[in-house]
């Protein structure tokens, strides 16, 4: 029998931590991409899009140039579409100059099984041919089911499969945080466990 007592989700990163982590990732991107002049940031909805926009702001501060930022919805490329009801789509918004010949940095909140990123790579292949694709995530919680790794990781967070990781961003959820809970006591959605 599983322990059914609700365990409140506990924050592992708070707003200032997330701000520092994003700044560090922005510097890493500039360093690895040697100035980041051909970088395009594509966030994966929902929260990856907000993180991508914040990264773009930081890259602009560092390099003095605006960095194209967009969103890439992967819903129609998922491998688990037939396991549930049809899902509502999110916005795909590719910056005007496209992705051909550019360095695309995919941005997501949590890296888990790797299946989302597999879907994102397939989606990207239908949109253009980037020079290279890299991956930035706020949290890597392990348990990969595909040979995929992140190039930029905000925080490595070893978890058990019973645990849940929930990223909150101010633009969508009212505050910034990364919450670690358990499946039994995890808030269904929103910061109930605060």
């Amino acid at each position, binding site marked *: 029998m599983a322990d059914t007592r609700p365990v409140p989700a506990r924050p592992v990163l708070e707003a200032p931590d997330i701000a520092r982590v994003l700044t560090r990732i922005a510097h890493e991107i500039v360093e690895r991409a040697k100035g980041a002049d051909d970088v395009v940031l594509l966030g994966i909805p929902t929260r990856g899009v907000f993180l991508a926009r914040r990264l773009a702001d930081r890259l602009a501060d560092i390099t003095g140039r605006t960095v194209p930022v967009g969103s890439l919805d992967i819903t129609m490329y998922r491998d688990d579409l037939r396991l549930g009801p049809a899902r*509502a789509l999110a916005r795909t918004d590719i910056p005007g100059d496209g992705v051909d010949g550019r360095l695309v940095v995919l941005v997501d909140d949590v890296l888990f099984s790797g299946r989302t990123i597999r879907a994102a790579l397939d989606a990207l292949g239908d949109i253009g041919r980037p020079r290279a694709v890299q991956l930035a995530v706020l949290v890597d919680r392990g348990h990969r089911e595909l040979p995929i790794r992140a190039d930029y990781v905000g925080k490595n967070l070893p978890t058990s499969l019973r645990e849940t990781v929930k990223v909150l961003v101010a633009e969508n959820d009212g505050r910034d945080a990364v919450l670690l809970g358990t499946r039994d006591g995890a808030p269904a959605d929103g910061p109930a466990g605060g």
Partner: protein
Amino acid sequence: MKRHLISAADLTRDDAVLVLDTAEEMARVADRPIKKLPTLRGRTVVNLFYEDSTRTRISFEAAAKRLSADVINFSAKGSSVSKGESLKDTALTLEAMGADAVVIRHPSSGAPHRLATSGWIKGSVVNAGDGTHEHPTQALLDAFTVRRHLAGAADGGPVPHGAPAGDGTGRDLAGRRITIVGDVLHSRVARSNVLLLNTLGAHVTLVAPPTLVPIGVESWPCEVSYDLDAVLPGSDAVMMLRVQRERMNAAFFPTEREYARRYGLDAARMAALPEHAIVMHPGPMNRGMEITAEVADSERCTAVEQVANGVSIRMAVLYLQLGGALPADSPAAAAGAPTPARTEESE
């Protein structure tokens, strides 16, 4: 959303907004170098057409193909139907072939309902026009066109003529005044549009000669007028219906000239419309009858755009019905609630 799409009345407001929002994303696929999505790979869509149709059939075919479904076109002409096969036997044949969805057009009102409710097939049934009853995907694409033009600006208002159509994602058509003119009696498009536009909050007025207004129209959620000139100044969109001569077996109006003079849209009448108003036509147009060439070719006329929007709408309907194990669940989507499964990928 229900498993079948038989009537525009099957859609709640949230369902309808979900279809329009999904179509908005599908429309963006048309701008890509590779206009194809892998989403319905391995699914089979049968186009079962008992009645002539060009645009609806190729629209459904293009939609299914863009979603990577396998498409089987079945038209009554030159098939076993012309040898006397019944709808039931045809349906059982399609079921044996593993059809996941059947898109049906039939001259008899109610045929799609019969197909969906008789237990002959397990897949989804999409009504592509039945007799003089309904044509729900046409109503959806009309509502989509109206929304892009009249609620597409950033502030939710109308987009100027000639400018690229806007994006009304998440919005309905509350308060928009839409006038449907012409052969309402024989028009499945009119009935579906009245139901759907009303569901989306629009205010619909039908204008037609008394002989072309169906019996029982007083129970429809709309108003009826016989005077086009009185209605035009208060219309945000005017939808001209084709005069369906092939369904007319009696004298519904004295002469075509008189019909065109009283109920046709010409440049002078178009000038009486408000500045932002659009002119719509489901096609095929009878130029000189219900619409003059000058109006049909003006930038306020959305007839060609409606065809393009038809593909996006049909992609949205097929995706929402076949994309998952079950048809899409609209309330969660309509509330904009992010699915928890996004972060918990393994769910």
